[in-house]
């Protein structure tokens, strides 16, 4: 998917004005946040479980090469083929090649963020292969002219029931339905045909288990099971950082993932798939491929941002982010929104291609508090800001302003004088009120908020006045 992250500010303003979106976001937020808060209390020791999860993820990421080789060997022992892709273009090339090799006309897909990153659907279509998204949310987006996802767990969270009713009526040519269960059944019937006729199924991978060479898939709808059970070919497209050591580790992480994501104690389906159809089996794919994707991940290993590789894509950080909750996922401009997206997008697409994202946060640390693998998201965002400044990527006026400030701040007398004049000026600006409506120096910034007026005296003045007193 092409990144539109450079247009963050413009996108965000448009989303703020979107009444339907604002309603949907409010609705979704409450549900995920409340359910999560309740679900984590079922764990006797949530903190210890988080610490264990951090240790599991670090164990692999700190020696990623060794673990990848181990996973590769185990997976190939089970009859799978392991392929490697440097970037999105290579993902597309490899998957199209696999489709050609097996004479595939249709691919059913369960959710894969990597496939979004790579823009795989367009590549498949160009090669004459029909990609069908089967996660209900992703399907809704696909038939709506490939509307991009706006949340990693609930991709169509920006659509209302009305939107979906209109869309199904238009695209399926069926009478317009207004009940959610009826719409869900309609999608089920349409997609069932695709499940049965597709020659190839594609999935992401929540985890890759090194011990057994398996992929673990978490779904509620059952589409993940369909696309990995019915077609002749199964292709897993996932990032190189997804490896975990053992099945025990999988159990630990599974105590955190559904709880953090949707607030469920466990998702309805949790499948661990190992190798191809065995002799005598009635179902399962005859061919299994893993496409392990780099797309910027290798360069994050052992960097200032290595902790980001622990991410298990639960979405809790965005569910709890005041900025995401206000503007929704589209404004972030690429596959991953919210705090995790504001870190990942600059890392994977380039710091200069997402200038505003590291600033699209209040650094309130709600995200860091809820992240099941304790990624210090605000700290990483701050580091990205530092990098931008070091590399001279901030606007000229901002740099000039900061330089000026630094110069003045080193001259105490001048600084005191400046502060005094500034405080008097702001007091005068406020008049009788204790708030300033519009700050001439920052009209944009103060459009949406008031600035508290200073009391007229600076700290130094008050300190000097009190010094003589007991």
């Amino acid at each position, binding site marked *: 998917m092409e990144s539109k992250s450079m247009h963050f500010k413009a996108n965000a303003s448009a989303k703020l004005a979107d009444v339907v979106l604002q309603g949907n976001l409010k609705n979704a937020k409450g549900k995920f946040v409340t359910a999560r808060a309740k679900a984590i209390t079922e764990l006797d020791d949530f903190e210890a479980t988080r610490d264990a999860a951090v240790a599991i993820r670090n164990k692999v990421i700190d020696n990623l090469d060794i673990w990848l080789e*181990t996973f590769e060997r185990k997976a190939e022992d089970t009859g799978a083929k392991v392929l490697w892709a440097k970037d999105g273009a290579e993902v597309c090339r490899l998957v199209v090649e696999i489709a050609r090799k097996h004479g595939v006309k249709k691919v059913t897909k369960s959710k894969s963020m990597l496939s979004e990153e790579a823009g795989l659907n367009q590549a498949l279509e160009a090669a004459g292969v029909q990609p069908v998204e089967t996660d209900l949310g992703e399907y809704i987006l696909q038939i709506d002219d490939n509307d991009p996802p706006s949340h990693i767990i609930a991709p169509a969270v920006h659509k209302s029931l009305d939107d979906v009713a209109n869309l199904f009526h238009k695209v399926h040519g069926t009478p317009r339905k207004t009940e959610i269960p009826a719409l869900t059944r309609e999608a089920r019937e349409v997609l*069932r045909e695709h499940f049965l006729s597709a020659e190839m199924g594609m999935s992401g991978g929540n985890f890759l288990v*090194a011990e057994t060479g398996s992929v673990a898939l978490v779904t509620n709808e059952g589409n993940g099971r369909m696309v990995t059970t019915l077609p002749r070919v199964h292709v897993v497209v996932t990032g190189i950082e997804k490896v975990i050591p053992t099945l025990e580790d999988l159990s630990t992480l599974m105590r955190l993932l559904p709880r953090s994501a949707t607030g469920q104690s466990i998702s*309805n*389906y949790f499948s661990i798939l190992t190798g191809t159809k065995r002799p005598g089996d009635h*179902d399962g794919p005859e061919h299994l491929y893993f496409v392990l994707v*780099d797309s910027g991940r290798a360069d994050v290993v052992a960097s200032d941002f290595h902790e980001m590789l622990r991410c298990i894509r639960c979405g809790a950080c965005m569910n709890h982010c005041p900025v995401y909750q206000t503007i929704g996922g589209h404004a972030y401009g690429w596959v991953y929104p919210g705090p995790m997206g504001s870190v990942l997008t600059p890392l994977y697409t380039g710091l200069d291609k997402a200038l505003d994202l590291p600033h699209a946060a209040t650094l309130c640390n709600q995200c860091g508090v809820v992240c099941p693998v304790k990624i210090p998201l605000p700290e990483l965002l701050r580091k990205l800001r530092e990098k931008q400044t070091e590399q001279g990527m901030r606007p000229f006026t901002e740099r000039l302003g900061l330089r000026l400030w630094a110069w003045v701040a080193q001259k105490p007398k001048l600084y005191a004088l400046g502060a005094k004049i500034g405080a008097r000026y702001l007091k005068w600006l406020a008049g009788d009120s204790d708030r300033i409506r519009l700050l001439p120096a920052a009209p944009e910034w103060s459009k949406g908020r008031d600035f508290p007026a200073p009391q007229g005296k600076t700290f130094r003045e008050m300190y000097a006045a009190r010094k003589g007193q007991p």
Partner: protein
Amino acid sequence: MSSREDILGRVRARLNRGATNAALAREQMLAALSQRTQGPKPAVDAAPEALLARFREKSEVMASTVDIVATEAEVPAAVARYLVAMKLPKTAVAWPSLTTLDWATAGLTVEGRGARDADLVGITGCFCAVAETGTLMLCSSPGTPAAVSLLPETHIAIVRAPRIVPHMEDAWNLARKELGSLPRAVNFISGPSRTGDIEQTIVLGAHGPYRVHLVIVKE
């Protein structure tokens, strides 16, 4: 250079990989794979009655329905009872491993085979069940095809109470002991399929079954 070499090469460079730290990392890896350390687990009372009670409670939270019978011989009648009560057809596909049960006497037409799209009711057993979360563990094999629990709108699963274990970790140990290596598909199932993708409103019956009914056999 192949992409594999390029990617691994860059990872190795970033980790300052040399002979010494590679040997150390390999040692740590082998230790992790052989120790299989378990993380913190919520306490689950492992007494048989308590396990059954917890499994039942958690299954119901996940929207499964539960019936308990004393012996395996009572299963076909229990299944028939459920199908009649739910006004469902008395025809079903079942795991081939379950054809030894006397379905016909209970008035049911049951075929042991892989599932097809037209099948409305699917009957399976399970490898074991996890009390912690009310979850079934199904392992695929020629006698236990995966699609039987997936394609039909109604999934009926037979659970033997002695096969209920406290945690998922226990299920892995059982699989290692009894199966050696993992089957092609291990499916942990907790209730009927569902989606919340339209306005975060949960609807049961997405792509998989609309309903899951558990017949627990006490012995």
